[in-house]
Every structure is written in structure tokens, then in C-alpha cells.
């Protein structure tokens, strides 16, 4: 063996080093790129499809009749253009769950925790790196969906501008909604550690629980439902707020609290459980 001439002396490190490491990890596997690309493709694709169909439907009408139809349907061009959120939230939620569970599956987590025995640091670094990616991807999905949707709605003259009241807020809030779904997935991944279990849990949280709540007798369906992801997402996307439901930002705050609880429980378990 040759004698080492290159020093291993630390140049940097600490929390910044752990962040850099997590960034290296997420950018250095191909699955990150194709799963994010798939999330964008399917969400934007679905949104484009529904926008195209809706726009085609309204092209039959014009003038006063179009106006009457739009009011009757309580049509919201922005919310309609963002319908891909249903798929986008699932894609990011599943991805969040996989960010953690894949490290457990291949036992890379042991290598990681040997390098960084302070487990809270690892958790925060993963949260920061994945959270930033999720916000970016969520916003890419909503902005793309919006512009594509407006291109379709231009035909029947139903398009709105980014500068119109509430439009930018709806787009940004819906992107954040999907990112929070991703963080929730990450938290559930930390708690459950197994890919299949974590994915089941995030799908249950995003789709099954709201569906069950909507089956409750009135008025409990709305009272409970407004606190759940589905309604919070719809409120984020709408520009014509529904009175009985949460304000978009309050909704996001509620979702953020759910995600924070999941991440906090996951972080506590990470610190106490054997790796």
C-alpha cells in the first residue's frame, strides 16, 4: 500500500457539509430525475387535457349565454387549469416517502449515520434538500399548468392574466400545497421506513381520509373535510373563495402542521431507534 500524501484534514463540514452531502446524494442518482420528470409530465399533462376538454365545452357558447354557463358552473379558470394537482400531490408525496425508505431498503442509512452520528442533522438536511426540490417542482407544475390552461381558454375568451386578483396567489399556494404533500411523505417515510408502507400511508392521507370524511353526515363532512388535504388543495387553487372553508394560507398552515408533526415524530424515532 502506498503512503497517503493527500491530507484528509477537514476543510469544511458541520451542518453545511451534511447539506452538501444530501444534495450530492439526491442529484447523483438517475431515479431523482426521471421521477421528477414523470411527476411534472403527468401532472401538467393531466391539467392540459382537462383544460383542453373544458375549453372545447365552452366554445359552443358565446356572449350572454357563455356568461350564464360560466356562472352556473361556478367556473374558475385558474382552479381548472391547476387540476393536475391531484396527481402532482401524489407524485411528490410518494417521492418524499421514497427519499427515506430507499435509504433503509439498501441499508445506506447505516453508512450515512456512521458518517453523521448526530441524527437530527441528517433529518434536517434531508428535509431542507428535499423540501427545496419539492417547492421547485411544485411551482414548475403549477406555473406550466396555468400557462398551458390559459392558452386553451383563450379560444372561448375565458383566460385570465397572471396579474388578475388572486391568480398569482392561487398558483404559488397550489405549488406549495404539493410541496407540503411531499414533506408529509418524507415524514411518514421516517416513521414507517418501509417503502410500500410509507406509500400506502401517504396515499391514505391524501386521498382515502378525505374521501371517508366526505361520507360523514352533514355538517360534519365539511367541518372535518375542510381540515383535510383535498379541501385545502382546492382552496389553495381557487380564486373564488368558498366561505365555509379555510382561507388558502390558513389551509396551508394546517397542512404544514400535519407535516411538521409527522417529521417531528419521524425525527424522534430516528434518534431513538436502532438503525
Amino acid at each position, binding site marked *: *500500500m502506498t503512503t497517503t500524501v493527500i491530507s484528509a484534514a477537514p476543510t469544511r*463540514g458541520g451542518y453545511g457539509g451534511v447539506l452538501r452531502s444530501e444534495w450530492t446524494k439526491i442529484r447523483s442518482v438517475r431515479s431523482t430525475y426521471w421521477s421528477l420528470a414523470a411527476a411534472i409530465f403527468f401532472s401538467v399533462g393531466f391539467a392540459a387535457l382537462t383544460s383542453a376538454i373544458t375549453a372545447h365545452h365552452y366554445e359552443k357558447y358565446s356572449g350572454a349565454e357563455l356568461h350564464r354557463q360560466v356562472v352556473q358552473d361556478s367556473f374558475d379558470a385558474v382552479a381548472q387549469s391547476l387540476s393536475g394537482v391531484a396527481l402532482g400531490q401524489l407524485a411528490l408525496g410518494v417521492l418524499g416517502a421514497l427519499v427515506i425508505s430507499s435509504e433503509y431498503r*439498501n441499508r445506506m442509512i447505516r453508512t450515512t*449515520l*456512521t458518517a453523521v452520528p448526530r441524527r437530527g442533522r441528517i433529518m434536517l438536511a434531508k428535509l431542507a434538500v428535499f423540501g427545496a426540490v419539492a417547492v421547485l417542482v411544485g411551482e414548475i407544475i403549477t406555473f406550466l399548468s396555468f400557462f398551458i390552461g390559459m392558452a386553451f381558454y383563450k379560444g372561448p375568451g375565458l383566460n385570465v392574466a397572471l396579474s388578475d386578483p388572486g391568480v398569482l396567489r392561487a398558483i404559488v399556494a397550489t405549488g406549495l400545497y404539493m410541496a407540503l404533500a411531499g414533506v408529509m411523505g418524507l415524514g411518514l417515510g421516517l416513521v414507517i421506513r418501509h417503502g410500500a408502507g410509507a406509500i400506502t400511508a401517504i396515499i391514505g392521507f391524501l386521498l382515502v381520509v378525505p374521501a371517508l370524511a366526505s361520507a360523514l353526515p352533514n355538517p360534519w363532512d365539511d367541518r372535518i373535510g375542510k381540515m383535510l388535504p383535498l379541501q385545502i388543495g382546492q382552496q389553495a387553487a381557487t380564486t373564488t373563495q368558498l366561505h365555509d372553508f379555510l382561507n388558502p394560507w390558513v389551509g396551508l398552515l394546517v397542512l404544514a402542521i400535519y407535516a411538521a408533526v409527522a417529521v417531528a415524530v419521524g425525527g424522534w424515532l430516528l434518534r431513538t431507534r436502532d438503525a
Partner: protein
Amino acid sequence: MIEVTDLTKRYGSTVAVDGLSFQVKPGVVTGFLGPNGAGKSTTMRMILGLDRPTSGTATINGRPYGQHSKPLHSVGALLEASAVHTGRSAYNHLLALAQTNGIPRSRVNAVLEQVGLTAVAKRRIGAFSLGMGQRLGVAAALLGDPGVLMFDEPVNGLDPEGIVWIRTMLKSLAAEGRTVFVSSHLMSEMALTAEHLIVIGQGRLIADTSVEEFVQRSVQNHVRVVTPDEQRLRAALAERGGAVSVVGDALAVTGLDCRQVGDIAGAAGCTLHELSPQRASLEEAFMELTKGSVEYRGTADVALEGAGA
């Protein structure tokens, strides 16, 4: 220096590690030996802070692993070479580890060079052979140029060339004054690599000794004698303090060496057809030592014991 004191790990009612205490000193390769399921990996995981002991402590250079803020500079470990993301390149895998401890990129290239993986550094780890994967694990352990190194079953599944490479590397790391702690379930491998041995069975310490002493103490030497004058020779040997038992058509003598048995036979006027020293192999010695502590025993053991006698 690794120090383990009263280390115990229970999983429900199963005791994986049971009041283990030992020290691993720098400058020599210390073998950590035990049958499968003896608690070697569990002990190593506790030393590395991955698993929490039920009771007792494990420290490296006087501090628990979790209290080292940049542990790769003091401890390098290869627990499972397969514990990697197979989609990542060798370079990026090492880079991600290096960044956590502020180790410069130049060092990543240096360890890749050291283990001979420079040419395949940008390739996916999934495309690596078992031996290349093991080399990558060694590279990761060497990243921080640590004074303490731990390897869990490093030669498992390697071809002869790979085994020799690992063996040579372990010895040279120890020769540089580092603490080198290597687990194995193969006594023969440890006899070639290690100078000191810590032997455990069912989570308990069985021996903490130099390899030389272990071999001396545990290898049952006896002298095999074949003679037509069995009764007379037995009496003569017994008179001089030899213990004699009959094995097939031969006598097995312990307590006397070949020369003494020959002299006694000559003096007693006994004809000898065979006089040979018998040494049990190291594997047999190891099996003898850990006989009571093997978790799962195959029926083939019975046949082996008969053949080895």
C-alpha cells in the same frame, strides 16, 4: 483504541450480546471471532452508535461514537459493502460521505487510487463485482485517514486475490500504528491475518488472547500409536503420566510427546507400527471452543466429530 465495557443487547427475550468487555489496542490486527449469530455484527453496530446498547458502554478513543462530531477522521468502518445506493457512481458515493465530514475532493480521488478503483470511479456501483464493491467499502473506511478501523467479515465472498489484498492491507494498516478490528467466522483466516483474538459465542466472551496462545492452548495435541503389544504399552505409558485412550486400532496418547512415547516403548520392549504426532486443525480447535455456543447446529457435526477424533 476501542473499549467495550459490560456491553449488553437484548431483543425482547433474546440476548444477542451478554455483558461483553474487551479492549482493542493499536498496532496489531485484532480478530473478532465467533460462529454465525454470536453477536459480532451487533457488537460492531453498537460500537459505531448505530444500535443502542441495552446496558454497558462502547467507546472509541475514550468517547462514545455519537460524541465524535466528525467521526470519519478517527474511525473508519466497513460493515456491509452492499449498504450503498447501486444507482450512484463510486465517486459520488464517496463524495457524499466525504462532504459530511468536510473531507476535500482530492482525498476522494486518493482513496479511489489506493484501492484501485480510479478507472471505474464514474461507473454505477450496481455494475460492480463483489470484489470491487468490497474495495469501495474499504475506500469509504479510509476516507478520513482514521486511526481506528473496523471491518465486518471483509473477506466474505472474495476470490483468492481479493482475500490476499484485504489481508495485506489489514496488516499494513496495523503496522502504521492504527487500531484494526476485523470480524470473521473463519478461524483459519484470522490465524493468517490477526495477532490478537477476541472470541465470542452466544454474545459472551470466550477468549481474549494472542493468536499464538490460542493455538497453543486450544489445539489438542496427541500422539497416535499403533502397537501389537497394546496392554504392555498402555501400562508403561500410564506409569509415566500419559493418558491413553483407544481410537479404532490405535492408541491416542496425551500428556507425552512423540519422543517420550518412543523412548518408553523402547524401554518396555514394545514393537511400534506407527508413531505420529496429531494436531487438530485450527477450525477444529475453534469448533471445540465454541461448541456450546453455536446457534444452529447441523447434523453433519456428529460425523465431523467422529472423523476428527
